[in-house]
């Protein structure tokens, strides 16, 4: 099509064609406009096909993600039912994970075939997931917010955009590469230079959680949490930076004109403006930390235990799925794969809950966004 705005009539054929439903029997388009009539009819037909494709194709495309979502839920649920029957509530409270003895004949309990001695308790996995993500958030949130504030409020435009590129690069580094760095470089460095200092903390509640023996390569709960923190920083920092950039300049100037220092102005104006959005981003980051798989599988030490101290090895639900699926495939009763489905369902439940929470916070923050004038201190 080489239609130009100066020839409005050239735009006419498709419109009329689609309305009247096609070419006349004599092969001439309803509005020929001096074009070759056969070409006009062909073009009209193409237009009609194109329009249909656009409308109906896009409808199909919109339904596919919803179908995929429902399909995944249904698959996991159906697959997990025998495991849910077999494990009961003990799945959430028990710490014993025993796939059973594959060399003795399978037994039959409550309508579910299982290997002799099989018992699946996922509490260490659930605890590990929550603990590592909590560490990630506690470390990552202040760092990310501080960095974003520095980039927007303090640095000149050019250095800020160069350093801002760091966020983009950090966002793009694949998680397996961050895991590689975590286990071969970061973890050993922490174990050598940082962790020895922490282990001398006084033996009082909370702080005695730090009293333990770090592994020589640092793998364990704290390293896992720190690696997760590095990974959620770009999510929170990029969001905070975007929000800070949208704060209108006049309010900041007004605050400073009242004699506030930059810091006071920041807390009076910008902090109030971005608060809701930052909390939303933090919860979103938390959701992502809960589901991170490969980096945690590499740096967590992969021990299914509730970590007795912050340096001890642990693992998360997501990492355990990757690590266990290979061996549980060999379960001749098929219960192993079904237990993994139950794990996946639990993980799905936790992350969905957190993500829905994040959406609600962001929505509320977006509705409440207004000039903080008159909000009081």
């Amino acid at each position: 099509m080489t239609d130009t705005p100066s020839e409005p009539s050239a735009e006419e054929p498709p419109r009329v064609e689609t309305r009247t439903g096609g070419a006349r029997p004599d092969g001439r388009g309803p509005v020929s406009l001096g074009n070759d009539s056969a070409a006009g009819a062909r073009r009209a037909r193409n237009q009609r096909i194109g329009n249909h494709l656009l409308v109906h194709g896009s409808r199909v495309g919109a339904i596919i993600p919803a179908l995929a979502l429902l399909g995944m839920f249904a698959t996991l649920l159906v697959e997990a039912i025998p495991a849910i029957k077999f494990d009961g509530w003990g799945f959430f409270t028990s710490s014993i994970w025993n796939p059973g003895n594959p060399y003795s004949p399978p037994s039959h309990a409550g309508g579910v075939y299982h290997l002799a001695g099989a018992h699946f308790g996922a509490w260490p996995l659930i605890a590990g997931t929550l603990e590592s993500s909590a560490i990630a958030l506690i470390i990552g949130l202040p760092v990310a917010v501080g960095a974003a504030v520095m980039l927007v409020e303090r640095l000149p435009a050019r250095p800020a955009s160069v350093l801002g590129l760091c966020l983009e690069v950090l966002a793009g580094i694949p998680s397996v590469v961050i895991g590689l760095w975590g286990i071969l470089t970061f973890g050993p460095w922490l174990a050598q230079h940082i962790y020895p200092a922490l282990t001398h903390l006084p033996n009082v509640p909370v702080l005695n959680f730090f009293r333990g023996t770090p592994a020589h390569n640092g793998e364990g709960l704290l390293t896992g949490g720190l690696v997760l923190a590095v990974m959620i920083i770009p999510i929170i920092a990029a969001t905070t930076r975007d929000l800070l950039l949208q704060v209108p300049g006049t309010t900041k100037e007004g605050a400073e004109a009242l004699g506030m220092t930059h810091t006071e102005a920041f807390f009076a104006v910008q902090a109030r403006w971005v608060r809701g959005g930052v909390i939303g981003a933090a919860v979103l980051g938390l959701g992502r930390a809960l589901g991170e798989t490969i980096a945690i599988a590499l740096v967590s030490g992969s021990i299914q235990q509730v970590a007795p101290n912050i340096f001890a090895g642990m693992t998360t639900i997501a990492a355990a799925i990757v690590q266990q699926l290979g061996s549980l495939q060999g379960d001749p009763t098929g219960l192993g794969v079904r237990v993994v489905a139950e794990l996946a369902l639990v993980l799905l439940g936790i992350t969905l809950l957190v993500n829905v929470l994040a959406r609600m916070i962001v929505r509320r923050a977006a509705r409440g966004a207004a000039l903080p004038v008159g909000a009081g201190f």
Partner: protein
Amino acid sequence: MSAAVTTPSGLSPGSVDFSISTVRRVRNYAWWTLCALGLLCVVAPVAWILVGVIGKGISVWHWSVLTTTTQFIGVSNSIVGTLVIMVGVGLVAGVVGVASGIYLAEIARPSIRATLLRSASEVLSGIPSIVFGYCGYLVLVIGLHWGYSLLPAVIVLGMLVVPYVTKATELSLNQVPVAYREGAEGLGMSKTYLLRKVVLRAAIPGILTGIIIALAISVGETAPLLYTAGNTNAYPSVALIHHPVGYLTYVVFTSLENPNIQIENLSYDAAMILIVIVLLLIGTARLIVRLSQRYAPNRALGRPSRAERRAARELAAGRMTEDIAAGRMR
């Protein structure tokens, strides 16, 4: 707040005290020092990861890595596999994501159904990648007897990144200036014709950026591929099913603690190649944003100033960062 202006108004300017108390001054410096430390804690790991991985990668680099398969200490088959998977994901996520973006932005009227479809896409973007991989394993690899192969891998990864393409498409369609639509309608175009010939064309840069984001996420994924693509030491075959595919993240994941030093080094080589691919993709996305600004036919609407264009670029880059960071980490 201790008073900056200590005297009542109405006195002569000379009597107004503009000095700031020491406590406030210290508090001010302390806050900005903390923020600077935060920035340092962001920049340092980035530099450390890049220098550490790329430095180590270069020190063990042999060009033969690019031309030999894993069987003979190389990653050429994994590079081909990763590229093939990328093309597949681009097709699946591109077609489905763009279609659903168009539907949500242009065709669906505000209704419960549209809200449901939009939330489905949002929910999908929050599901951990290992759950995708496991479902793909259950349904496609085992259920349909496809075995570890390309098609399950592409479908699983495609579904994983579809929400990002949908979001980018919807956003960039909503940002097409109203004047374009008004002008086209004034010329008598039908709604669908206008959509195809005017609005979609104006939205192409944004849609392309969305697809690149999807590719950047999918190229770094490991978890969903472990139990769908399988692994092989040979080049991927043309068969869509029943033939496993090797890919770069698998090499990084499995060979990093191999007792054979040559194989261990492969994981650094693969990590370096992955970083290069991702950085190239991010650079391409930035270039698209910049070019679309330069060649946008917006002179009639008043060309935005340099600062405005810069701000728009920063905003686009920020959105991209959020999406890639959130998508990579699932």
